[in-house]
């Protein structure tokens, strides 16, 4: 649905896979900067008479302060309430009302806004985006903020609180990072903090982070580049440059010792989650491939052992989740009813120990790399898919063509690299979380050694409110 928090892991997972595979096919693009610091990326594709306009602001939940968690995402909602020259509703009228669409999303690291439109509506889309970049505060008031606050609280209820296993990402964020660490709270934020955000908070946030020098604009699809440049000049060039946004160094997640947690949820089937702190987008090469060797296909190591050979589990998944500054590797197991989470954890460890000791076979490595090309190509079918490739490179690496750099690196990954990365990151301290039915604490893996999570959440929330 519209204006939602992009689940961090999904975004990154897809991002990783598609960055892997651009050997033969390049995305043609040009990029330039306006004097006010706005970075522009243009890429023409005339296959379908549509255009995507997509703006990434380099700000996300990690830029929030404790006590105001959820603010970046709440702000994203405010961006859809109209601006100086655009009354509320017109934005939708000029997008979905003409056969297109619009939306936005917020992650830990960035916030994006996009319009997909028939190609003859490009100028109005640029006008809409420029107006909220330049003139959002002209029409902002407390009523608008409050209305979106209610919507966001409903989003939290729908996507987290009323969702089986929906609290897991929040529990991990709080357990993985020290108090006050920029990745220690969830993008959606806490109910208390959402209630606390003031109109002044919105204004200060806008002035610092929503300036052209903190934004990258991509126009992708069926358009005339000369005409697009003229319109971009017309609508964006007079927006004033803002302050420089600092990029403080963020420490990687680090556990001194493993933690064992139990969370009682309104579920009937327990689940086992194991998570290690790893590294973010800049250093994660090899961990995505590791996840493909462990799960996903029938002969992947964890799947083969737990689902097929031992039949302890109904499903297994493993993935590397890379943010800009930090990363985690997670394994999730849904057990079969006649088996315990303790058995499952032991089986996972056995598979991992063997894998870390011997590394992947040449066949495993080849198979893991084989799907990358198709994944990449299918993302190129959509204007938005292309935009996201170019934008993530531009915003996080200063290079829209980063996808192709990453691809070369991935092709070069060796069995020894995978063995080294797996050994380095999947053998250290970790968090083991058992989610069990209410009142069934004894179903947790090694229940006696595990801490109950309600305590941990209460502490965390109290500290921030």
């Amino acid at each position: 649905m519209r204006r939602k928090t992009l689940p961090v892991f999904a975004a990154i997972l897809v991002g990783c896979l598609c960055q892997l595979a651009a050997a033969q096919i390049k995305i043609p693009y040009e990029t330039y900067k306006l004097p006010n610091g706005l970075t522009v990326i243009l890429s023409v594709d005339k296959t379908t008479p549509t255009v995507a306009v997509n703006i990434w602001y380099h700000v996300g939940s990690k830029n929030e302060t404790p006590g105001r968690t959820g603010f970046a995402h709440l702000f994203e909602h405010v961006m859809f309430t109209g601006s100086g020259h655009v009354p509320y509703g017109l934005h939708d009228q000029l997008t979905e009302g003409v056969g297109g669409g619009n939306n936005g999303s917020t992650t830990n690291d960035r916030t994006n806004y996009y319009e997909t439109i028939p190609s003859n509506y490009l100028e109005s889309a640029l006008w809409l985006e420029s107006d909220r970049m330049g003139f959002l505060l002209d029409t902002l008031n407390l009523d608008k903020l409050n209305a979106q606050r209610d919507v966001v609280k409903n989003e939290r209820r729908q996507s987290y609180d009323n969702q089986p296993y929906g609290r897991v990402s929040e529990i991990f964020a709080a357990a993985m990072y020290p108090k006050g660490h920029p990745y220690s709270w969830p993008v959606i934020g806490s109910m208390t903090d959402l209630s606390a955000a003031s109109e002044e908070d919105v204004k200060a946030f806008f002035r610092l982070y929503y300036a052209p020098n903190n934004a990258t604009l991509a126009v992708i699809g069926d358009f005339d580049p000369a005409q697009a440049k003229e319109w971009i000049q017309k609508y964006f060039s007079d927006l004033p440059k803002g302050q420089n946004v600092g990029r403080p160094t963020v420490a990687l997640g680090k556990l001194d010792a493993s933690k064992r947690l139990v969370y009682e949820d309104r579920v009937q089937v327990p689940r086992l989650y194991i998570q290690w702190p790893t590294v973010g987008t800049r250093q994660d090469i090899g961990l995505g491939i590791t996840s493909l060797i462990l799960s996903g296909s029938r002969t992947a190591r964890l799947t083969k052992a737990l689902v097929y050979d031992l039949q302890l589990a109904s499903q297994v998944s493993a993935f590397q989740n890379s943010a800009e500054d930090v990363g985690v590797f997670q394994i999730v197991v849904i057990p079969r009813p006649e088996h315990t989470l303790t058995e499952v954890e032991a089986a996972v460890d056995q598979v991992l120990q063997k894998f870390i000791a011997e590394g992947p076979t040449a066949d495993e490595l080849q198979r893991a790399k084989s799907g990358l090309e198709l994944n990449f190509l299918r993302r190129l079918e959509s204007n938005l898919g292309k935009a996201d490739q170019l934008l993530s490179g531009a915003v996080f690496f200063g290079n829209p063509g980063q996808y192709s750099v990453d691809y070369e690196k991935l092709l070069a990954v060796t069995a020894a690299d995978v063995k080294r990365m797996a050994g380095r990151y999947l053998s250290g301290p970790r968090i083991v979380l058992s989610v069990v039915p209410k009142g069934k604490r004894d179903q947790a893996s090694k229940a006696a050694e595990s801490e109950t999570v309600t305590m941990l959440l209460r502490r965390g929330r109290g500290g921030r409110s």
Partner: protein
Amino acid sequence: MTQPKRVVAFVAAFIIALANVAAVAQQTLDRTKVPPSGPTPVLRVPAWTKTQLANGATLIVSERHSLPLVSFSITFVGGANQFEPAERRGVASLTTSMLNEGTKTRTGDQLSDALQLLGTNVNAGVDAEDGSIGFLSTTKNFDAVLAILSDMMLNSVFPADALERLRARTLVNLTQAKDQPVIVGAQVFAKVLYGNAHPYGQRSTETSVKTITRDDVVNFQKAYFQPGRAIITVVGDVTPGKVKATVEKALAAWSKGGEKPSFDYPKLPELQPAKIYLVDKPGAAQSVVNIGLPGPPRNTPDYFALQVLNTILGGQFQSRLNANIREQKGYSYGVNSAFNYGKGPGAFRAGGSIFTDKTDAALIEFMKELKGIVGDKPITDEEIKTAKDSLIQGLPQRFASVNAISGAITSVVVQGLPDDYYQTYAQNVSAVTKEDLARVAKRYIDLGHLAIVIIGDRAKVEETLKATGIAPIAMLDIEGNPATP
């Protein structure tokens, strides 16, 4: 000494130049004016060829060479509603899962490894009224993947131990579904509307899944995957002549048989006066609301009028329902409505997830909007124009990828629509009148017979719902049966 000066002079000139640009822009730019749209792009409906294979299957080919990709699918007319006996619900899904478990010449592991090396997967699934098996591949891998698909569809061996493993997984999935209020809401809604005797009210259950035998699976495979009801759709980086030869060769062993099934459904249960059906979910943060009743089939002559109507009521973000209940009132993260067309009386449904404390208030607004669209709040010319523009100008999006094109073309054939359906789409949407909208709203949104199904925290919502006076309340369990107090 001179060098710094030059630099200063240069910088100054540069700044002046910039200031000029900015000044010019500010002078000429009136931001209050909505930029005009350009000329509407010409609609480019992908062309396709339609031929017959020797075994009777229909072959559709549409070329798109912009990327080295091919979408391949075989769609079967008729689905679980036509081919699953009521007491064997779930056999279709178990059968399609078992196509991965090995053939006469390849084990399940070998199939998986071979497909992974080709960078793709063969996906099979059976829906209510149709089913399919297919894949997306790179051009260079197309022949090899097609050969594996053919092997899976025709030569699967259905090992008994694999059935037990998949049965166990299915049972875990069914248990997990009980914790998902949105899934429970959809299931109970279907059961209330259609009952147990109508296929639209049936689904797989623990009982039916436990009953299914390997023979059931083998028989389903034989009966279902027949060329006489198959539409093969190939879209992408191929040419019709060459691809026909490739497909004929890959499916050479697939011999004639099968026909399109009948879609005769039993009579619907008699419509009941409007009622609230409440399923207790203690502690739920939100109430999942589904409001509606059985609607028309896809081939209704009222289709285009209903599409325009629903776009105004609940098909978009700024539709009446969402504009009111989410944007103005803040009761939800999003609400919507839809007509779920099929060969039979698919449901009209409006609903969404509502903050528990606002369940009654939201229901009052839902009813207000439904009464509104039926006549209390007449549809305006502006609403009609926006809805039509949106539908007509959104058409190119349906052809934005090879899989999307395949779906768009296949649905025309499966639903029995004319070949020029997309070329005449704009004309048909444009022809809808205000009077049509008033008529179809009254006819299909039958306020006196709405079923209102709510999954929520009874302790918090029952009394306030009662107080709205909208309809009497009946308690149901999560299976949709009367709840025992």
